């Protein structure tokens, strides 16, 4: 029998806040993931071991996929962070029309993936809207006069690193607002008086921003970047929509490739699962390193 005080203690226990989430994931998430984990460590003949991972390492596109994924995640993170922080600070200035500006900036985030595919597929082709815009606005003529361009540019006829860069820019256009709103939400909690106080004590605007604003919104920044990093390491759809399978390999693109495209091949199911676990490990490592680097000591003390 539990005593009354005991019950009250359990009800007030902060761990109770975690129970719904735990139950939810146990019921709806754990079984498929455990299956995938099990599949990745057993071969088709039922042997337990690392054979599937060796197959992954031998995949001719593995190295490309690995490198492309890393480059994509890191560079897009840098670019998106710089832009998102700048724009969040800009919106936070509360100038005339700032809410409308915020709305405009948020639009790309609301676009469904199919729309992103249509938009950039029709943009990047030879007679697409990017070349149309350059031609009708006269920019094309200027660039041709300067000798930078010669005739319409074939944006889609790129491969390797150039293709990854193209995808980074498109991805930034699409998801930058999702980084921005988290930082902006953090900025909203920041009391302007702090900054003013710092400025009264002689700090320049930049110093006040660096030493007062940034530390306070740091948890938001870390969260935003972490989430973006995790998503960035799982990029595949935009790459496949614009360049098709195999042209610009990514880790998760490989998973889809082995589950959907070469479904019937020997080992393909095992390969897909091994790739999944590999991706999980990869994302985990990078995220863990990221958290280490950005760790805030004061926060730990709270």
């Amino acid at each position, binding site marked *: 029998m539990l005593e009354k005080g005991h019950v009250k203690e359990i009800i007030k226990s*902060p*761990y109770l*806040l*975690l129970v*719904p*989430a735990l139950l*939810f*994931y146990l019921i*709806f*998430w754990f079984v*498929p993931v455990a299956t995938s984990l099990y599949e990745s460590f057993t071969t088709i003949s039922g042997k337990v071991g690392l054979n599937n991972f060796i197959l992954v390492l031998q995949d001719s596109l593995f190295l490309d996929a690995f490198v492309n994924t890393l480059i994509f995640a890191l560079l897009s993170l840098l670019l998106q962070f710089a832009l998102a922080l700048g724009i969040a600070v*800009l919106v936070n200035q509360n*100038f005339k*029309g700032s809410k409308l*500006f*915020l*709305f*405009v*900036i*948020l*639009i790309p*985030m*609301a676009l*469904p*993936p*199919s*729309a992103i595919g*249509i*938009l950039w597929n*029709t*943009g990047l082709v030879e*007679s697409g*809207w990017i070349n*149309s*815009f350059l031609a*009708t606005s006269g920019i094309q003529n200027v660039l041709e006069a300067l000798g930078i361009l010669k005739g319409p540019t074939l944006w889609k006829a790129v491969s390797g690193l150039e293709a990854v860069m193209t995808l980074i820019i498109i991805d930034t*256009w699409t998801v930058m607002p999702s980084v921005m709103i*988290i930082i902006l*939400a953090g900025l909203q*909690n920041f*009391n302007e*008086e702090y900054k003013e106080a710092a400025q009264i004590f002689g700090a320049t605007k930049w110093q006040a921003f660096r030493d007062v604003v940034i530390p306070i919104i740091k*948890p*938001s920044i*870390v*969260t935003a970047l*972490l*989430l973006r990093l*995790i*998503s960035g390491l*799982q990029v595949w759809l935009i790459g496949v929509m614009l360049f098709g399978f195999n042209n610009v390999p990514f880790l*998760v693109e490989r998973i889809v490739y082995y*589950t959907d495209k070469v479904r019937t091949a020997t080992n393909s199911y095992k390969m897909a*699962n091994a790739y*999944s676990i590999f991706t*999980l490990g990869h994302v*985990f490592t990078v*995220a863990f390193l990221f*958290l280490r680097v950005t760790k805030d000591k004061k*926060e730990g003390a709270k």
Partner: protein
Amino acid sequence: MENILKKTILYLVIVFISLSVLIPLSYLVTISFSSQIEVNDYPKKMLPSLYHNIAIKWDAENQNYIVMRENNEGIFKELYISSKYDKIRDYMKTQLNIDMTTERIEKDFNVAKDTGEIVEYKYYKSFFNNYIKFFTVFSGAEKALINSIKAALITILISMSIGGAVGYALARTSIKKKEAIRIGSLIVRMFPMVSISVPMAVLLVRYGLFDSMLGLAIVYSIPNIGLTAAITRSIFIGVSKEYEEASLVFGATEAQTFRKITFPLVLPAFAASSMYAFITAWNDTAVSLLLTNKNETLALLIYKSIGGASSIHYAASGAIVLILPALVFTFLLKNYITQMWG
């Protein structure tokens, strides 16, 4: 003087950023109003055109009409050759989005035949053709719209309540192993969803959640709970604890403090993460494809209607239909993200 310069630069930056978002979008909108022929035009127009300039020539030798259209470079190009008026009508309708009666075509085209000269007409497009067709060929859009709203709202509710609780616990309570819990809540996101969506769908069918919006919302919540936890945690940490303490000192209960003080402070965080939740639910087709039958979502309906079609003008109009409600949601929400306080 310096101030004016600064303001000018500020607004120039703002205009530049806005244009880099709006120009691609305006092309997307234009494509959604285009006819098949215009899709292939070069250079493309940034704004939708309302009409075509059509020229008609009578080829007396072969007894045929030659239909020409002025392209965006101002040159008339031959498109179609026929002597039958109903064939010409069908062609104009399907390829140029011009809706005309056979009688009108006969009357107009006969001028070319009688005079033996090239005659030019300005024919207005049936402007909303792609959109109208979209709704006539595929029924059930209203129901699908309601389903989508339902799925999105339930997703928001689930992720907010379950994820918000975790976020609060991580930021404000004295539980142990916070870092492990935090990473644990993110591992869910770290595992590529594409690789488990099929087994997960099969699992949900077994739980009896097939063809219900609740079932969909549960799947959508899987990545979003962890995400909401992360976002709300960071904001709860950012919110100064002193306000809450002051409120408690003045005799408010914990519940009152949460409702009156803490909640309004973290509202931007909830707004930001509900944005994520909404968009996950709204734009998904992969999960709803496997988990629904009669109760389709709008995104799925559009996907099933134009899936695989190479006619991008219809695909674009479908995408625009899908974007509009999402924009309304974004528009409503933006005020809560920039909710200035103090």
